[in-house]
């Protein structure tokens, strides 16, 4: 058995990882979502969130989370920005945390913690923690929805709908 050169070892390792990863993608894509409730929900929701130089408390009543597979979570919540405040709420309503890569309204979102805002013209904007727009996708208005809430998640096949009132986007595992 001849000894391999260091460069060969690295190449084999990278190829092995890529092969492993390529097998892993369809596995994740098949992971169905589950909307969390009760203690399972409160266990994963942070009580406050940092965004653009401010930490604001979470509106625990307006939080939602989904689990994809066994241990991939998407956690979304509105935060209690003060007062009848102004434009900051138009673009920043709360946090959007995902610990795996997902699609949101068809757009790809990498692992991370973000701010989000649903706009009145039918968009969901996702921003990084300094306010840079990372994703902007169109929302769907669900006129048939009975008793809409400020923020909630519902199942949509194996995917999850994130609702803000009657507007929603579909979140799916990648």
């Amino acid at each position, binding site marked *: 058995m001849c000894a391999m050169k260091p460069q060969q070892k690295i190449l084999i390792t990278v190829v092995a990882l890529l092969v492993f990863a390529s097998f892993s*993608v369809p596995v994740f894509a098949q992971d169905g979502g589950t909307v969390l409730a009760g203690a399972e929900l409160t266990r994963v929701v942070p009580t406050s969130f940092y965004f653009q130089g401010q930490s604001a408390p979470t509106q625990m009543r307006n939080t939602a989370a989904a689990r994809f597979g066994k241990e991939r979570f998407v956690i979304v919540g509105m935060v209690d*920005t003060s*007062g*009848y405040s102004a434009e900051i709420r138009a673009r920043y309503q709360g946090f959007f945390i995902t610990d795996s890569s997902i699609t949101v309204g068809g757009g790809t979102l990498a*692992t991370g913690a973000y701010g989000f805002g649903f706009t009145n013209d039918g968009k969901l904007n996702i921003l990084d923690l300094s306010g*840079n727009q990372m994703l902007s996708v169109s929302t769907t208005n669900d006129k048939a929805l009975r008793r*809409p809430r400020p923020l909630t998640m519902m199942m949509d096949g194996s995917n999850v709908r994130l609702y803000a009132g009657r507007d929603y986007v579909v979140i799916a595992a990648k």
Partner: protein
Amino acid sequence: MFGFVTVLLSFSLLPAQTPPQKVEPQQPMGGASTGRPATYTSRRTAGITDPNAPVVFEDVTDKTALANFRHVSGGTAKDYILETPSGGVAIFDYDNDGRSDIYLLNGSTIAAQQGKEKAPRAALYRNLGNWKFEDVTEKAGVTNERWGFGVAVGDYDNDGYADLYVGNFGVSRLYHNNGNGTFTDVAEKLNVARRGWSTGASWGDYDGDGRLDLFVPGYVQIDLNNLPPNPSAAGKDGVAQNFCQFRGVPVMCGPRGLTGDGDTLYHQKADGTFEDVSVKAGVSDPEKFYGFSSVFVHVDDDKLLDLLVVNDSTPNQLYINKGNGTFEEIGYPSGVAVNENGREQAGMGLAVGDYDNDGRVDFHITNFSDDSNTLYHNDGDTNFTDVTFQAGLGEVSIPFLGWGTSFLDYDNDGWQDLFVVNGHVYPVVDAHQWGTSYAQQALLFRNLKGKFERVGAQPGSALASAWPGRGLAIGDLDADGRLDLVINNLDGRPTVLRNVAASTGHWLRLKLIAKTPRDAIGSVVYVTTGKTRQRQDVFSGAVYCSQNDLTLHVGLGAATKVDKLEIQWPDGSTEVVDVAGVDKTITITQGKGAKQ
């Protein structure tokens, strides 16, 4: 390994995302709870008149002693939320002389709270008839001299004299009516001296023991020694400002971001004292929503009083009485927690009444500017539908910031019309062309058989005036069969509006005396004339931290006789009362019929 692969997937194998873009602020919008950006070239909340409009109300304030009253609530800059929502007003007959009297709450100042200056006093005006009022505050002993917000009327001890619960910032009061023109604060003695920021309370016998109980909403927890940053300090010395803005301009902070105050239900015991049963009954508001208005009323008509709480910037709560001393909160499933789009609104005031004459009680809730008020139609079976825009109350209300609201049949046509008092909380709105203003016109809507139409304001008439209004109370102050109004204005004098509507129908005034609770709170009256069957409820509180006259007023339109008058008394029993004639005040005593 799994995690490592995940990271690899996340950062190495994904398609490249769109390069980050710095987001510029959108069109500024107001109203945290809903809010739609609106650009106006002129104000929509003041100076809107119609030369062809009828004159419905005459401002007679100057002709009365109420012109001497000055409401005070902090400084003019409105640096703190404590300075903006006071205060309520009550119309009630405290001396049983048959004339409706007026009680106006006053605010206070932070300096007065800290003992550095004298606190302003509330005022009780005795109605002498012919629009003459006498200030009897000192003699009656109801000066309050605390930061007053809400007033609710109820004869808690069934002695035949109406008592007052005053919700204060600090310690609230229960003024017992001694029956001789004086009152005594018995709040501490009877265990209802609620601490915190108490607002619009409501009396009601929720457990059917014949004794009035008391619900008191709490608003926000404020520590005068640790106040939130004020607008003038925003952005300086590290004071954050971007969470306390309105349309990008620094304003006072709150309520969002501040800790709310829970709610309290006091059950009256057989010995006349009260016990706090909030937690046991399931109405303690553990999430500490920002409570402003409340009412005990029959929502599902099972003869048990239910409870609605209107909250600012948080969901409204509807508590259904389970009949065992506890309530079930069904705000969301019932549809009244949020508006039709699922948004939390800045609930302030509450009108209670059957506006479409279908026999069920409906609700109208006032909200912030850049948002509509909300009309909830009661569909039965504890289901409500937001019908604001279909009913004609949506678009017109958007620039206004609403407070006191009440159904009233101002023209006696047999359909409950609607009145709304408005006024902004941010003085800075007058410095910008945002379509709104600090002082705002009131809104009167005529009910056209279930749809509403704004009644215009003739130039120079009362409805053309603008006030920073808050509390509102309805009653027939001159007993002429037309409902009058009193508005408590922030930092100013009140407004007394005499109903001078030219063309009105017939009417009845009904004063009910039940076996117990004696003031008949919790009664429901059904009046049938021809094919029309109206419902009216005797309730305490609601409006906005205020109290309408407990004497019911029923417009009859062209009808010159009542075909049927049916009363469901607080104990659940029903009685049909013979009524002879119209256009008069009738006292009906349970089991003894009408005294006409």
